[in-house]
């Protein structure tokens, strides 16, 4: 053992700065960004209409039989929805730790392809998606990513477009099932592809029957952990300037 030397550790550090990495050189950040965006894209899909089919039981809900009608109604509303402004509460449930991480913020969506999510509590974090570009502001750090720059983003982009144009109904990215109770629909989405199913077991969306607006989005992981987003103070078709989604 040659360490620590008499002159102290710091000096030795200076002498021995060699670059022998044991971490993968390809970097892990793009993958990290990717999964975040997948989720966002899923959010998108929800507002813009998706597909259906039957599976597990949900307490208090019964399976919807007239799927075609639901799809049509949802599509009509999606068509008329030009913007959404809302507050949100996010709750991450860590099952085995009996622990919750709660955060809050504001949400803005505007047709087409523009999304702004701003977390304000207990940390500040801003994410803007504007067509092909993503902007993230995390504390003092700002990060811009073009969705054209990678295969992964290209795929995500395709999902967005599919959703906006309504083609997601037949795109096969999810196997859906729709349930209903008195006041809400519950749309349960199971990822059909390997890529998405790695991250989520199912995604459950509750939709208000009154106006077909989304109340909650819950993403369930196979580990039993889950993340739920609750939308409150929703304003549909509020006037939101494009500048709000500007990526400088």
């Amino acid at each position, binding site marked *: *053992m*040659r*360490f*620590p030397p*008499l*002159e*102290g*550790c710091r000096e*030795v*550090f200076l002498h*021995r*700065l*060699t*670059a*022998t*990495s*044991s*971490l*993968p*050189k*390809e*970097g*892990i*950040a*793009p*993958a*990290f*960004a990717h*999964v*975040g965006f997948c*989720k*966002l894209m899923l959010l998108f899909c929800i507002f813009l209409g998706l597909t259906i089919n039957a599976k597990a039981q949900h307490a208090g809900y019964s399976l919807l039989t007239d799927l075609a009608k639901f799809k049509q109604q949802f599509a009509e509303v999606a068509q008329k929805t030009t913007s959404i402004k809302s507050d949100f509460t*996010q709750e*991450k449930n*860590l099952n*085995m*730790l009996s*622990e919750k*991480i*709660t*955060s809050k913020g504001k949400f803005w969506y505007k047709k087409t392809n523009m999304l702004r*999510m701003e*977390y304000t509590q*207990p*940390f500040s*974090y801003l*994410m803007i998606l504007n067509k092909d570009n993503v902007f993230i502001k*995390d*504390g003092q*750090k700002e*990060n811009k990513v073009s969705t054209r720059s990678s295969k992964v983003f290209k795929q995500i982009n395709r999902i967005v477009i599919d959703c906006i144009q309504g083609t997601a109904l037949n795109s096969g990215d999810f196997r859906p099932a729709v349930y209903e109770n008195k006041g809400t629909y519950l749309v349960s989405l199971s990822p059909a592809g390997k890529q998405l199913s*790695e*991250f989520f077991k199912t995604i459950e969306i509750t939709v208000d029957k009154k106006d077909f607006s989304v109340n909650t989005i819950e*993403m369930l*992981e196979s*580990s039993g*952990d889950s*993340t739920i987003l609750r939308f409150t103070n929703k304003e549909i078709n509020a006037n939101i300037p494009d500048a709000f989604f500007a990526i400088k």
Partner: protein
Amino acid sequence: MDDIKKFAPNFTNVLYKTEVDVIGGHHLSGLLLIKTLPDKSVRMVFSNEMGFKFFDFEFKSDGGFMVYYIIKQMDKRPVIITLQKDFELVMMRKRNSETAYMRKDDHYLYYVFPQEKGANYYVTNLQGTELIRMERSSDRKPVMQAIMNNIHNDIPDTIGISHKNFKFNIGLKLLKR
């Protein structure tokens, strides 16, 4: 040698805003939850701000380590071992008093805890009243340095982890919930 234990953080149930800088100029951020369970094991879950989980580790009370979950992109042995050893150093685990020894220079005391490979170091002032930094070395060279600042009730407000032979830095800032 055992008096270094007084600096050990006690992560009962804490949440840290986390920043990571890795090779290639990549930056990522997220939340790190550290919770001590009733059986005294420490669970560590790292997810991004939107709730997406990157990893879920357990540092067992008997010194063992377990990966409950890690995303495919990070599921590489060097990555996992690096994280495991980094946090073992910070949590002041793996302190075998039989092999431990102490060194001293004009400015600092060095508490040295040899590991299977290399050693963990805790550097204090000469009086042993202030923890200056923590270090991890291989058999031949220093690997990583860590600091803890503004410790209240055994919980540091900030933690910094910095690797010496490749770019991999972690910054933690305590969040008030």
